[in-house]
């Protein structure tokens, strides 16, 4: 009976150790998981190259670093923060919303709004004259003016001879 208890205890202890080891080991993150984070970062060395498609050795090292951090259980935000602390904010695909970076978020919509306003006013001014229809149909020409003078003088003469 005593022997059975000992065997049970050993089996339970071994099972607990095995379960602990298995829980501590994270599965190796896949390339897709790594690239999901790398896509949000830019190569700190190359010009305008996202980290997930950058072919250099340096970028391969950074992607391995992301894999390592993911395996350690780091979140995407923690990894991005780590990259900012080590390599500067320029590695972020989206610049942080602070300081002059705000211009990148404000200027494009403002330009679109101003453009839409200008276009609206231009279209309005093009359509207005046709809609009003109050512009004189026949502008007064010198020929017409002399004709009017002639008619006036003719009527004056007729009045005199009545």
């Amino acid at each position, binding site marked *: 009976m005593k022997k059975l208890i000992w065997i049970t205890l050993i089996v339970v202890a071994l099972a607990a150790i095995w379960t602990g080891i298995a829980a501590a080991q994270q599965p190796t993150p896949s390339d897709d998981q790594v690239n999901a984070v790398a896509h949000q970062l830019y190569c*700190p*060395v190359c010009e305008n190259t996202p980290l997930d498609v950058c072919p*250099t050795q*340096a970028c391969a*090292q950074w992607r*391995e670093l992301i894999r390592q951090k993911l395996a350690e259980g780091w979140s995407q935000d923690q990894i991005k923060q780590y990259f900012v*602390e080590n390599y500067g904010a*320029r590695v972020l695909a989206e610049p942080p919303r602070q300081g002059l970076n705000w211009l990148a978020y404000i200027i494009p919509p403002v330009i679109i709004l101003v453009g839409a306003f200008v276009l609206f006013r231009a279209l309005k001014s093009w359509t*207005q*004259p046709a809609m009003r229809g109050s512009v004189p149909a026949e502008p007064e020409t010198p020929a017409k003016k002399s004709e009017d003078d002639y008619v006036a003088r003719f009527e004056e003469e007729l009045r005199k001879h009545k």
Partner: protein
Amino acid sequence: MTENMNSDQQPTRRGVPLWAQITIWVALVALLVILALGLRRSQQGTVQPGDIIPDFSLKMFDGYNFQGKSEVKLSELRGNVVVINFWASWCKPCEQEAADLEQAWQYYQPSGDVVFLGADYVDTEPEARAYLEKFNISFPNGPDMGTRISQMFRIKGVPETYFIDREGVLQYIQVGPFASIGQIQSIVDKLLAQ
């Protein structure tokens, strides 16, 4: 009556209000100034010989120290000739000069007049440590966190090495790897002789 009617029917031209015009122009000018400053900065080369280098501190990798401290400040090195080398483990040309730099450090270290600093530029720590081990680099070395130091020097790539005299004034810049230890010594000796 007819005249009045005609004048009433003239289309009234309402322009953009003055305050809006001023705001738009001010915003445009401000934007152009910011763009111009950014362009100017991006086209500027590295810091130039004769410039006084602003103070900075470099926290070293584990296992590296300078006079027992794990962090070194440039201002604390006044009176010494300072050689700052920017490198990275992924940089092949850096490997060409690594052994020469270490040899030069070994040569000048006993005198205590020259300090070599290695600033690891946008690198990953395991590869950086492997690089230091591979070339037996013993002079103080640390990561350039957030690229603050390299931005201050406005480096254009790696390797680049900056020689600062005893007064804290930049005297010489080496862009690219050194050809030999003799090249490093000739520059340092000139600064020591000043």
